[in-house]
């Protein structure tokens, strides 16, 4: 180690020790050591408001104003679709980033929820659809999909690490073939179209602006659920299990139960996203859950950065924009090549995704020594 390197290392150590250090990640992972009196006096509101920064307000205002200034195409095709896809990708971020289990079956869970909406609710296939009211159909669909996710989890946590991706991939592709070949429940190749969409207080929720807000509400709820969970005891234990399952087991934590529960939570998120997707498309078919759809969820999560819940939405926006405008920018029909190459580049050169790239860029621009965070290699 050269003298210069030593000096830099010492500087960064000093910076880490200094109290005025700027933490580069969106928010500190653990509560900051504020003074004891302050901590006692704070209500939950002041605690929350202390965390709200200018950029949060800006983002919130932007996403609320967005559908009114954007054209219906941008509000609906881009905005709402990105939110629904982002929610499904968020389920993978939670499972993979915090639970260390990369499941490729998230799209299958979402697809099953979409199929549930079609089967329990109304659709073009009157012989199969049960025609129940939309709230009942939706609730049942979400319950069934969550149970499916838990079952997938129970199966795949029997093995560890890299095996998970293989098993969930096999399950997902098997589900795709089942949906494609089964005509009695899944209506085979053509699937379901003309899905019944909720109509509340006379507002057709497939209109761009109402649908955007439905999607936004679900996405925000999912985002804050994940944000909350990863700091709750359950989330902390889950991250402990991710880093060292054996130690957590010997500390008395039920490793398998935590993992299956994580699958169930992520299944819930994916199911809500799947219901949104089904409403958005107005139809569901095996093509919704095929291999490229399953992998696109992984691409979205990795593109944005799997260590931050917001990464899922960043990735989804980039993905949806690319999907819609790749035709204009590149050779027609070569979307997969572009997205595949982009994914490859991200995986090879920036394991923390676009957010990691942004953080790197910012830290090199600001030229401040940031404390080195120990992060798991993706």
């Amino acid at each position: 180690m050269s003298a210069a390197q030593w000096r830099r290392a010492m500087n960064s150590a000093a910076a880490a020790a200094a109290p005025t250090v700027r933490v580069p990640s969106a928010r500190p992972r653990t509560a900051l050591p504020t003074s004891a009196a302050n901590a006692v006096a704070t209500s939950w509101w002041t605690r929350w408001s202390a965390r709200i920064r200018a950029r949060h307000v800006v983002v919130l205002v932007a996403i609320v104003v967005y559908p009114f200034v954007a054209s219906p195409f941008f509000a609906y095709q881009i905005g709402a679709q990105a939110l629904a896809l982002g929610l499904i990708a968020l389920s993978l971020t939670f499972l993979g980033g915090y639970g260390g289990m990369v499941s490729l079956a998230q799209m299958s869970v979402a697809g099953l929820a979409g199929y549930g909406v079609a089967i329990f609710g109304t659709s073009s296939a009157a012989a199969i659809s049960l025609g129940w009211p939309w709230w009942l159909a939706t609730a049942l669909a979400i319950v069934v999909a969550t149970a499916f996710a838990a079952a997938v989890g129970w199966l795949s946590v029997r093995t560890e690490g890299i095996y998970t991706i293989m098993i969930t991939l096999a399950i997902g592709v098997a589900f795709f073939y089942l949906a494609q070949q089964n005509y009695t429940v899944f209506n085979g190749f053509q699937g379901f179209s003309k899905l019944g969409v909720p109509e509340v207080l006379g507002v057709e929720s497939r209109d761009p602006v109402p649908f955007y807000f439905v999607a936004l509400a679900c996405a925000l709820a999912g985002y804050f659920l994940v944000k909350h969970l990863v700091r709750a005891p359950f989330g902390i234990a889950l991250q402990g299990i991710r880093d060292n399952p054996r130690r957590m087991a010997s500390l008395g934590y039920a490793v398998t139960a935590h993992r299956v529960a994580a699958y169930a939570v992520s299944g819930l998120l994916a199911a809500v996203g799947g219901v949104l997707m089904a409403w958005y498309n107005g139809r569901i078919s095996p093509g919704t859950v095929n291999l490229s759809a399953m992998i696109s969820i992984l691409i979205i999560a990795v593109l944005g950065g799997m260590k931050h819940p917001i990464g899922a939405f960043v990735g989804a926006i980039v993905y949806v924009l690319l999907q819609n405008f790749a035709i204009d920018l590149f050779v027609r029909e070569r979307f997969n090549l572009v997205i595949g190459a982009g994914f490859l580049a991200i995986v090879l050169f920036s394991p923390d995704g676009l957010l990691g790239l942004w953080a790197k860029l910012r830290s090199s621009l600001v030229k401040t020594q940031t404390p080195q965070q120990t992060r798991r290699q993706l």
Partner: protein
Amino acid sequence: MLLALLALAIVAFSVWAIADNAPLYFKTLLNGLTLASLYFLVASGFTLVFGLMRNVNLAHGSLYLLGAYVGWVVGDHTGSWLLAVAAGFLSAALLGLLMQVLVFRHMEGQDLRQTLVTIGLSIVLADLMLWGFGGEIYTFDPPPLIYGSTVLPVVEKFPTFRIAVLIAAIVIGIGLWTFLARTRVGMMIRAGVDDRGMLSASGVNVQLVFAITFAIGAGLAGLAGVVGGTALSISPGEDTRYLLASLVVVIVGGMGSVVGASIGALLIGLAEQFGLAYAPTYSVVFTFVIMVVALAFRPRGILGRAA
């Protein structure tokens, strides 16, 4: 106990099926064996690479398809089917070698990242092949010796080529086993599967062993591409099918074990064909049930060992 029950159920089904329609039963059996041979050819390379490098190569299906396409081009130009097979093997082996040398050796020990890279590669390769070869369906013309159909007892007519595939798979299986069990390089590979660190410490160039294994595994996929393309056909989407097949075969049989791959391939191939013949809508479910049962009772596969 459970195994005995299962065996009893299979025997009962066989007796019923033979009594009901013997030609159908034996034809399905032969078809199942043919499919199992194809699956074995694809999955053996997959399991070999996984066992040694802990690399889940999700681009394995793309290697299959690439071998098939390159083989088709060579076969089309030279008119020789055997050259097509060789070209399929070599092209996939070369690509596999490049993947290992250029990418994977730089991210050793990062299982998940390697897997993500293979996913990215499979997307790019699939799209490039779609670009180059379009969506058409290609078929091969095998040499006349193994073309046409052979008359067999009970089954009557059966395509000769499928019998050839079966024999080829058995020969390749035995060859692979001999290579692993009897040769020096095979010994190194087996030692690497058991303990990579120790192998490297005893002075073996592990990177070379890795490269050889990756080339062989990828080459087997390319070879299977030409053989499978001749038995059935090649078209975009086949990469996914064979990737799924190898995944399930390897999960059931045990990761890293070539013998396990043959057992898994037999189970899955037979289940798929019998499912198609006797319960068409649910044939995929059979495959899936086998996987679930295998995982529930033997999480590491039938012949799998602790990693």
